[in-house]
């Protein structure tokens, strides 16, 4: 249990990313395999086109005849006559400029003119369209002999047939369309699933979070009550003393009426008794007042907290236990201390816990308990120092862990300091410990100084203390 505040919205994005990221390798693998298959298959499928072009043009008697044959065999194709690395003539659909360049390149790759020993069509080349998109053209070049008997060395006579794949393979557009639709559906499914999954995760987390908060609220409340309960026993005893004195004085007054004392002496004695009753009554009042201040439910909203007053109250209420244990209680408060910005109830609860722990630590030995307050920069530091046995580094490192306790079984829950730590953090403060074995332990609570008016946080802004222990003010007598 950390008692810290984490938004579970970020978990939603995390969950969505997990789904998308886990799908990414699969998608990449599928893409690679598909493109390899398409390339290999597309290349193989276009090879017969080259052979066909060759077969059609080779028997031609002249360039014009060859072009004529090609145009008949390949309707819709662009047929180019390339000579001396120039496009001499083009038929069919108007050839775009890049096609000319590609045709010339292809012809150049044929490797020189035909020699006399060669027959027509012996040199031919195919440029398959990769990737095999419907619009891209497959191109085949064939060297042709022209039977005009002219100079054979007039090299580079070739016919180039360029045909878009969609005309070669009429089913191709359909196949591509299906591919696009299927992959689109897959992507949409993936996105949808990531949304559904992250929504599920978010819902789970938020219900978990709600349960955790409810539990935490109950724990903080239980701790508050138990620290008050420990005090209550001491306070009842503390009140008993003045009460018995007052009862005694009342009896004394009764006795006086039965005594036949002279009026002046009687008046003096009555006045003394009245004064004593008054003093003792005030003592009771002080105790009940500080107890009332402490048990007040409200004040969990952040505001200006007079730390010295809280120290004073906690000190008053702990006075009895200190006396019982023969522990000297010292309070060294800084009179110029500015108010802290925190929830008063939280500060009280933390200090009560710390003082209670310190007194537990000094059980069975005399010592000094020192409550000190001072300002350090933008922080107000409250230290609770005891002269108890101290603790080892191992214990110190675990002291704020929930359920970690050094008290005997049945005495401590091990939650007190964990709750204090959480409360300190919730008030943008911190709780630290310093201990030397054999010398004592000092807990330091630091709280932010109340901001001055001009940089006062907006109500409901980010500086608000999360109203976790009490989302709404609780009405009296509400069942626990």
């Amino acid at each position, binding site marked *: 249990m950390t008692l810290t505040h984490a938004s579970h919205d970020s978990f939603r994005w995390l969950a969505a990313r997990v789904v998308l990221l886990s799908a990414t390798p699969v998608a990449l693998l599928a893409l690679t395999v598909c493109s390899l298959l398409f390339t290999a298959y597309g290349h193989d499928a276009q090879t017969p086109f080259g052979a066909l072009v060759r077969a059609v043009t080779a028997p031609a008697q002249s360039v014009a005849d060859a072009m004529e044959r090609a145009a008949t065999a390949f309707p819709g194709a662009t047929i180019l006559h390339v000579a001396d690395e120039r496009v001499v003539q083009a038929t069919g659909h108007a050839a775009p400029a890049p096609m000319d360049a590609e045709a010339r390149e292809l012809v150049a790759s044929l490797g020189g003119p035909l020699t006399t020993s060669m027959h027509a069509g012996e040199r031919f080349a195919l440029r398959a369209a990769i990737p095999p998109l419907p619009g891209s053209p497959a191109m085949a070049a064939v060297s042709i002999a022209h039977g005009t008997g002219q100079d054979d060395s007039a090299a580079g006579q070739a016919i180039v047939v360029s045909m878009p794949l969609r005309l070669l393979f009429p089913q191709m557009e359909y196949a591509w369309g299906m591919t696009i639709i299927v992959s689109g559906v897959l992507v949409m499914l993936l996105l949808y699933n990531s949304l559904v999954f992250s929504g599920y995760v978010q819902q789970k987390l938020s219900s978990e979070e709600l349960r955790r908060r409810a539990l935490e609220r109950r724990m903080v409340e239980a701790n508050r009550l138990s620290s008050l309960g420990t005090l209550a026993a001491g306070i009842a005893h503390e009140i008993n003393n003045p009460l*018995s*004195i007052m*009862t005694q004085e009342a009896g004394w007054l009764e006795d006086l009426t039965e005594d036949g004392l002279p009026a002046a002496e009687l008046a003096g004695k009555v006045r003394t*008794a009245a004064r004593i009753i008054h003093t003792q009554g005030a003592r009771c009042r002080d105790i009940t007042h500080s107890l009332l201040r402490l048990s007040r439910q409200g004040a969990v909203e952040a505001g200006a907290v007079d730390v010295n007053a809280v120290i004073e109250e906690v000190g008053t209420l702990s006075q009895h236990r200190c006396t019982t244990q023969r522990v000297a209680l010292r309070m060294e408060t800084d009179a110029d201390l500015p108010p802290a910005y925190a929830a008063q109830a939280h500060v009280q609860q933390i200090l009560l816990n710390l003082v209670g722990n310190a007194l537990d630590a000094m059980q069975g030995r005399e010592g000094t308990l020192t409550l000190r307050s001072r300002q350090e920069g933008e922080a107000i530091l409250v230290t609770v120092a005891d002269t108890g046995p101290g603790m080892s580094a191992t214990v110190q490192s675990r002291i704020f862990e929930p359920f970690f306790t050094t008290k005997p079984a049945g005495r401590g829950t091990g939650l007190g300091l964990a709750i204090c730590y959480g409360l300190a953090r919730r008030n943008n403060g911190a709780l630290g410990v310093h201990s030397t074995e054999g010398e004592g332990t000092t807990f330091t609570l630091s709280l932010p100084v109340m901001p001055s008016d001009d940089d006062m946080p907006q109500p409901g802004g980010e500086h608000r203390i999360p109203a976790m222990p009490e989302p709404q003010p609780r009405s009296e007598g509400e069942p626990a």
Partner: protein
Amino acid sequence: MKNIRLLLVDDEQDFVETLAERLRLRDLGPDVALNGEAALTIVSDSIPDVMLLDLMMPGIDGWEVLDRVKTQFPEVQVIVVTGHGSDTDRDKALANGAFAYMRKPVDFDQLVITIMAAYDCRVAMESTEDAAAIG
């Protein structure tokens, strides 16, 4: 009955002084000790018959006083009067030899009766001791 030697031990001065005053009116003039050390000194100077003892005191507390008095002078009857009210304290006090255990605020008449009873007990003890010595 008249010469009960009574000792009040309590750190609450107002309480103990008024109580002494009221007891004096009833011819039970007690000695008063405001802390454990003073109580032990008075006890060793003149052994009281009955002792009213508060448990919660700074310095030597009531438990220690009870323990020492009962060890050294078992004939002293100790009535524990305390603001503490737990049953364990009560059992512990009685086990340690206290004559009675009373909670503050005490009813004055009840207190006087208890003091008398304690004194009777003390006298009875003394007579059995004497009888034993004679016998």
